[in-house]
């Protein structure tokens, strides 16, 4: 590649690349919402754009929007929110929630999203994964997996805002998703979600060992320690929701603490 005397001295130790801090915003209509175990949604006071702008200025690496009522009706307010986001937020934006057809994906991307996250429809018609990947590139297709642990220790795939259960094993599903063309996995541990008591490390470990694409862990991150634990279990990125929205954590101090814990983070 580039010859050695060009530039070789890097200050940072980069054993496996930087880990991304991602803000996850669940949206209903034009409001930000939050629940526990993807249930019992409450509204938050300001608009999603207000939260998003703040996170951008504080140094967030990426944003994920999930439309929590997309399965019920149309998406106009979400498109508005996406468009407004692109006005002043210049980091990658992933949008998911009720994306059912390639046309839905086109609409979302046209409004300004960089990647689409698909969960329920992928379960119903897995072909959509390869459709989106071949049309827009793998990096654009994020397979969103809602996972819940069964009594026997295995994990099953859920969908429709964790309302419906399947018999599909999460690990197998993640592997299938990668084979079909997904570029990233957004992995949500339902049982840990909304409680800020830590993430499902076993789940994260099993999935990241099974696939070779980046895994974004979501659900339960309430501190820098939780974040670090997730990374050490194999996550390439962590999506944080409740702790950010309710102000328990802020991005600047989170990143500084992560740095002290030895996690490689964008400045």
């Amino acid at each position: 590649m580039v010859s050695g005397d060009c530039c070789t001295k890097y200050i940072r130790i980069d054993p496996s690349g930087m880990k991304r801090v991602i803000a996850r915003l669940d949206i209903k209509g034009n409001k930000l919402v939050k629940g526990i175990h993807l249930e019992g949604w409450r509204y938050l006071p300001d608009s999603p754009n207000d939260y998003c702008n703040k996170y951008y200025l504080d140094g967030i690496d990426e944003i994920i929007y999930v439309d929590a009522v997309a399965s019920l009706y149309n998406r106009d307010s979400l498109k508005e929110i996406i468009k407004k986001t692109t006005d002043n937020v210049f980091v990658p934006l992933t949008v998911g929630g009720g994306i059912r057809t390639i046309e839905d994906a086109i609409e979302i991307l046209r409004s300004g999203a960089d990647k689409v996250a698909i969960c329920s429809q992928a379960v119903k018609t897995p072909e959509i994964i390869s459709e989106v990947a071949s049309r827009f590139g793998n990096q654009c297709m994020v397979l969103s997996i809602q996972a819940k642990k069964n009594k026997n220790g295995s994990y099953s795939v859920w969908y429709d805002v964790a309302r419906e259960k399947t018999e599909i094993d999460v690990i197998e599903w993640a592997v299938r998703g990668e084979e079909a063309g997904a570029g990233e996995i957004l992995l949500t541990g339902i049982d840990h979600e909304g409680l800020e008591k830590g993430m499902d490390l076993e789940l994260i470990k099993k999935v990241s060992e099974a696939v070779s694409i980046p895994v974004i862990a979501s659900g339960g991150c309430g501190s820098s320690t939780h974040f670090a634990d997730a990374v050490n279990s194999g996550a390439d990125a962590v999506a944080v929701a409740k702790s950010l929205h309710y102000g328990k954590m802020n991005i600047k101090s989170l990143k500084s603490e992560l740095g002290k814990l030895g996690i490689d983070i964008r400045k």
Partner: protein
Amino acid sequence: MSETLHGLPDKVIFCKKCCISNQRPSTKREFSKKTTKDTETVGFGDDGICDTCKWFEFKKTIDWNEREKQLQALCDKFRRNDGTYDVIVPSSGGKDSFYVAHQLKHKYGMNPLTVTWAPHQYTQIGWDNFQSMIDAGFDNVLVTPNGQVHRVLTKLAFENLVNPFQPFIIGQKNVAPRAALQYGVQLIMYGENQAEAHNKFDENLSPLMDISHFCKKENEDLYFGGVHINDLKNHGIEDKDMFLYKPLEESDIRKAGIEVHFYSFYKNWSPQENYYYAMEHSGFKSNPDGRSEGTYTKFASLDDKIDGQHYYTMFIKFGQGRAMNDVNRDIRDGFISREEGIELINKYDGEFPSKYFQEVLDYMGITAERYWEVIDKARSPHLWEKVDGEWRLLHKVH
């Protein structure tokens, strides 16, 4: 004007704020019900807004600090420091009763005894949550009726009143006052006043439950499953089998100085808040199968296999099922818009509870054929029509 069943108003009106219709029944003394004919329905104003929504508007003006003081005073009045119980909390192990018991114990220094009237058939999650509640630190008395008697009463209630849940409701109303008499406790604390959901406005203005719900008048005729108590022997049930179902004597209650209060009078009640509270303070788990049949929620009414039938028979008789119930609550609490509520109702309300259907049939000892015969006869012509062999509601919320 079409014929109506169950004594319902023949014109169907939907509330402009929530999604309830004027067909929704309000709470009535179960043991005086002979047939389904004499249904009392929820209050509705001439402005097209139901009493319950009006109540929620009124709630915004309540001085909750003042109510808090009243609760403190009430607890101070009844609190005992001699190691005996000072409050009975009727508990299913669900999030609502957990919240009440936990608050009384840890915030108000009371010594609660939780009392549980057993569901017809425990679900695994119901049993687990019940145990979680006890493990969280509460004494509990579980009262389980004679299995054979309970089945017969359930069957009768289903066939005569299209309400297989009635034996549960009857026993549940009695179990706390009876325990209060037995343990010498004067204060009973329920969670939510049903008027918060579907009764007349005025019922919300008092913290007290009307004791006629569990007391009988002198020489009153008592009906169970729509059958007079003296006729139950034709179904193999003796008078001595009915101890847990018979309402109590009013004089006994008054003499003992028993008071039945609603916690929702003293606190701004929210099932969702209770869910959060239970999640944070105990091992409470929501439905492991995801959303409950007939609705979108995962944390309400999880403990009885017959729960689904309870809501389904309501859907058949009144056109309002489980999703409708949850939606109205969420709209009034400001968690969803009416628009979202309508979509959720269209998507989930009236979904047939197939999961435990066979078990319920076996429990009642009836065939599926008989089940559908009873169900179809309960569809009032002013609410239902049959199109191409499929039953359809004439009026959907809009």
